[in-house]
């Protein structure tokens, strides 16, 4: 597809209002792209989807898809939902309870002549891997099966945009894993803009090609899931993506490929960071996977940079890993969180109270602009 062709099918949204749900954002989603809208409750994720579908009317805004304008408050254009070519999968699927799976899909095929609807509905159900259950009513289907019917119904209108509102929240974990793959497959088969809302970062990373982090109706950061999760643009974004280890420090030197930070008297080595001059107060964060932990008596740790001694505060066994909190020595006693393989504690005999050494991988240290209030050490 040419660049011009891509632009033709792109979804463009700009929304602005102060009340009752604050919104101030503009974003676009190209055909074939899966964009995840991620953020805490009340961040406006669902309202954005509803505004695109025409189920919510923002005080001011535009929604255009290709050449078609669905909403333009300045020009008093506001197409009702049934005149917008949009597919929407609701959080609880909202299937028509009195209709069979097939009839649910056929109901959205009003643009086809009557006799063709049944055949096309059948094809769509096969497309989402729902076979043999066409004549069941929604109440007789499992959560995963209902989700497939809802997706087939959303695709039935031959939509210009596909919207999914927390589509995986009502199914069990095993089904969810399978549905992730199916959604990715679907985005290849139907090259239209796909937006989906989730509050699960892991889910966004698995399914989306781009991720938009929202807070109180504004975009904090937009980029690949990897970038947003590992390199948050601000302390606020870092907190929202649940990056646990966020601290403040001061740049003391730039030296060749490295920069040096002063962290409450501790010296930290990081890859060179040009955007912050020497002397500036910054915030930094490190993912739990970038913290190495060893027993203090192991001397191999001596060769690693950014080594600090401390004590294990807490150790929680999760299904596949171990969540460890270490309190570093020093008056500020900062708490570092990290995840380790589940067998680690058993093998090393570590437990709460054990003296340990941690090493912070310089490449894992991510530097952000400091908060003006200087409260970066607060969780």
């Amino acid at each position, binding site marked *: 597809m040419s660049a011009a062709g891509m632009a033709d099918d792109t979804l463009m949204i700009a929304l602005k209002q102060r009340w009752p749900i604050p919104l101030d954002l503009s974003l676009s989603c190209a055909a074939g792209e899966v964009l995840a809208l991620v953020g805490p409750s009340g961040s406006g994720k669902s309202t954005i989807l509803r505004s695109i579908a025409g*189920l919510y009317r923002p005080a001011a805004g535009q929604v255009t898809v290709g050449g078609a304008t669905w909403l333009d408050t300045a020009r008093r254009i506001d197409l009702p939902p049934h005149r917008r070519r*949009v*597919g929407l999968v*609701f959080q609880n699927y*909202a299937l028509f309870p009195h209709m069979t799976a097939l009839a649910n899909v056929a109901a959205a095929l*009003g643009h086809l002549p009557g006799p063709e609807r049944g055949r096309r509905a059948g094809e769509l159900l096969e497309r989402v891997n729902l076979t043999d259950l066409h004549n069941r009513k929604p109440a007789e289907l499992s959560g995963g099966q209902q989700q497939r019917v809802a997706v087939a119904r959303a695709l*039935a209108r031959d939509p210009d945009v596909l919207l999914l509102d927390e589509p995986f929240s009502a199914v069990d974990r095993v089904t969810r894993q399978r549905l992730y793959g199916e959604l990715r497959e679907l985005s290849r088969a139907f090259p239209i803009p796909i937006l989906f809302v989730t509050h699960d970062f892991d889910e966004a990373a698995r399914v989306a090609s781009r991720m938009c982090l929202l807070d109180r109706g504004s975009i904090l950061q937009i980029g690949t899931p990897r970038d947003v999760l590992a390199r948050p643009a601000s302390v606020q974004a870092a907190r929202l993506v649940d990056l646990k280890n966020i601290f403040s420090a001061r740049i003391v030197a730039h030296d060749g490929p490295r920069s040096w930070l002063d962290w409450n008297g501790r010296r930290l080595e990081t890859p060179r960071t040009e955007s912050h001059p020497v002397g500036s107060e910054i915030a930094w964060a490190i993912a739990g996977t970038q913290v190495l932990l060893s027993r203090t008596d192991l001397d191999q740790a001596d060769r690693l940079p950014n080594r600090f001694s401390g004590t294990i505060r807490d150790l929680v066994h999760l299904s596949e890993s171990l969540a460890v909190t270490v309190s570093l020595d020093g008056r500020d006693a900062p708490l570092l969180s990290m995840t380790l393989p589940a067998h680690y504690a058993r093998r090393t005999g570590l437990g709460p109270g054990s003296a340990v050494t941690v090493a912070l991988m310089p490449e894992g240290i991510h530097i952000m602009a400091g908060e003006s209030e200087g409260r970066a050490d607060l969780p």
Partner: protein
Amino acid sequence: MDWVALSLSIKLGLVTVALLLPVGLVAGRWLAYTAFAGKGWVEAALALPLVLPPTVVGYYLLVGVGGATPIGQFWKAAFGHNLVFSFEGLVVASVIVNLPFAIQPMQRAFEAIAPEIREAAAVSGLSPLQVLLRIDIPLAWQGILMGLVLTFAHTLGEFGVVLMVGGSISGETKTISIAIYDRVQAFDTQSAGIMAAALLAMSLVTLGLIYRLSSHVGRRHG
């Protein structure tokens, strides 16, 4: 048995039901799906006939549409007879008295449809009329039918308003409940007894139907 009175009652019931079906659908949906300031007052006003003595409703109807009022004058000029003490007058009274019986069950049934289901219908390309015909009515039909049955049963038994607005003109405004009263006044207890038994049987059948239906109404869909 006063067959003229019985057939008049049934005719009045059917006409009232026919008029209140569209009124109930429109008002019931409006009250179920729209939030607006003063909605409680509108609902209260529509429920008034449930608690007001029928004579009060009848009195206001006489005052409102009687021969000396503008509405009454207009009616007389247009149709050549008074609205009160005529079958048409009875229909007006019956429709007003039955508003809550028709609207409330329909409103409850529409309220039981999850909003997302109607939104999903709109997003699936269904126009508002198609949403009414393919989603609202199929999902709320028990409530709609219940409103109509309740209206019909209540019309058969209505006495006070009918007497106030219609009087007791045979073949025009004398319904079966008035006929029973007439027969008792004339010490014709045998006729009164037969008609009372007939009305009792009809009421029992319609109420039985209502209870069967009401076990489905208000159950949330979706």
